[in-house]
């Protein structure tokens, strides 16, 4: 499903380029649940953003679901993000002005789904996540766990193959974190490929496989 070969990325700091990812290669199979772990600043988010087609690598090769990403243009990337990838963020990233249902509808708006079908599917997704009675709440009127569940509903509503989650439990208490992880396990059971960044070993333990990153390189031995 995901094939990364010798992907590098550096940021410009002043005049010098600072390498953040150094020739990273990795392979994630369809249906896998992978956790990326490592110290702060090691490049986890940078890697995940590249995997999620939100950012482009400087060099290297990236194939996602058979498609070559490094040569895709802006609109092709937007379409891949829309159809193939669902995002879950640490800070939920819901649009504050609009209610849960309309947040969940957004990926379908950009997919060109007619309003009536959008509404039906958004309500169904929210229902699955136990938010049937919260559909017309704006994010500010929802708890952190509820907001993250709205975000997960939004991530899965276009039925993507991959879920990309950057510290999905980073802003949640431990009980809620475990609830979210149980949802992730269900998603995996339904056939989704999940790539998640986390700091917490406890959360990483839900994954089948842990990829450890340090200084922009993969270390598969725990430190």
């Amino acid at each position, binding site marked *: 499903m995901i094939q990364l070969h010798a992907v590098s990325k550096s940021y410009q700091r002043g005049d010098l380029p600072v390498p953040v990812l150094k020739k990273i290669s990795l392979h994630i199979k369809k249906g896998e649940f992978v956790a990326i772990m490592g110290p702060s600043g090691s490049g986890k988010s940078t890697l995940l*953003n590249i995997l*999620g087609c*939100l*950012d482009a690598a400087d060099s290297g090769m990236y194939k996602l679901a058979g498609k070559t990403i490094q040569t895709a243009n*802006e*609109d092709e990337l*937007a*379409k891949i*993000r*829309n*159809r193939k990838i669902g*995002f879950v*963020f640490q800070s939920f*990233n*819901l*649009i504050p*002005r*609009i209610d849960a249902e*309309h947040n969940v509808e*957004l*990926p379908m*708006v*950009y*997919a*060109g*789904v*007619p*309003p009536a079908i*959008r509404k039906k599917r958004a309500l169904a997704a929210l229902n699955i996540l136990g938010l049937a009675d919260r559909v017309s709440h704006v994010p500010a009127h929802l708890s952190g766990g509820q907001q993250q569940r709205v975000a997960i509903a*939004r991530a899965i509503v*276009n039925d993507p193959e991959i879920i990309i989650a950057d510290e999905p439990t980073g802003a949640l208490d431990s009980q809620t974190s475990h609830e979210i992880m149980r949802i992730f396990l269900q998603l995996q059971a339904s056939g989704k490929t999940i790539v998640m960044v986390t700091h917490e070993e406890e959360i990483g333990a839900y994954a089948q496989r842990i990829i450890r990153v340090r200084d922009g390189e993969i270390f598969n031995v725990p430190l």
Partner: protein
Amino acid sequence: MNAFQSSLIHDVFLQAIASLKENRLRTILSIMGITIGICAVMVVGTVSQGVKKYIYQELDTYGLESLWVYRKWENQDPFRSVREGSGIDNDDLKYIRSCCSSVKNVTPVVFSDENDITMRSKGTYTNVNLEGVGVHYADINNDTITQGRDFRLEDIQRRKAVAIIGTKIRDELFGPHSNPLRKSLRWGNVRLTIIGVLDVKNRDILSQLGTDDYDVNKRVLIPYTLYQQQLGSKDIHTLQAEAVSINETEKALDQLTEYLNRRHSFHYEYVTESMEGWITTAEDLLRNISFVGLIAALISLFVGGMGIMNIMSTSVVERTREIGIRKALGAYRRDILLQFLLESTVVSVIGGVLGMVLGIFVGFGISYLSGYDLGISWFTAALAVLVSIAVGMISGYYPAYRAASLKPVDALRYE
């Protein structure tokens, strides 16, 4: 429009309203700028259209197809200047109809050089504008007779001592709303019987423009034959004619002068006048009014547009994260562009519609204060809305373009 676009427009409209609420003060200021600009556009449109209507109404009191031919008196040629007479006589009238195909009607006008002609009824005196005319005079001048009747051919042929008077003459000699018919009017030792009263004519705007200082409502019309008899001459001072259509006035003038030149063997030189010059003057004037107004309108629209650009730029910065989210969820560059363009257009159209409504009220106000019913220029109203859409799109373009160009990863990282 497909389902995607229509639902996007719906979403965008709600979002626009919401984000505008968040930036209330800036929004109100920008809307006001557009409102004032569009209001100015409306007022300019209403005033220029309304004034145009009035000016044309007033010009029409001469008959827009009217034309005048008279002898050029101040001639440089010493042999010609000594010639007597006006260069137009009664015999000319007989032939003009048959030779000048572009002339619909013609009337002789006889007047004297005397400035103050005084008439009297009982003990009351008044100054009048005395004109000796033919049967088609009222027709050509778009005059209507409100009381009594017009001249008949026999009045002219038999030199009857009858007169048609302007309303001011009636009011001054007989009192307002009185019936002066069959009453008599003393002109020197001639006793004229009043057979008709001319309807009031308005030349307020034209007289304010200084184009005409002669009071149309103080006319006294008598058969030109009678006037000629009193003056002891067969001269016709001016031929006033009506062309078959406005476009044929030049042709009618050419035909008339050609005829007169031939008939009088080029002994005289003629001056011709038509309404064209006046129409041009009026249109120049209107163009100047519109120009000044439109400059003012443009300035306020520009200020309003800058205001919109400013709120939209701020809005783009404040919503950087939202743009990142939308892009992560699959928004194309053009979706973001469209969203922000629509938002700025919503602001601008709100301003535009308010400006239009305000402009209509100001127009009514001006009508009320000036006493001229200017009406509403719906053409300008439609134009105003189009202009506000254009201002919204133009001023929203740069911020929208910046929003659309944000990279998703950068936008998402923005705090």
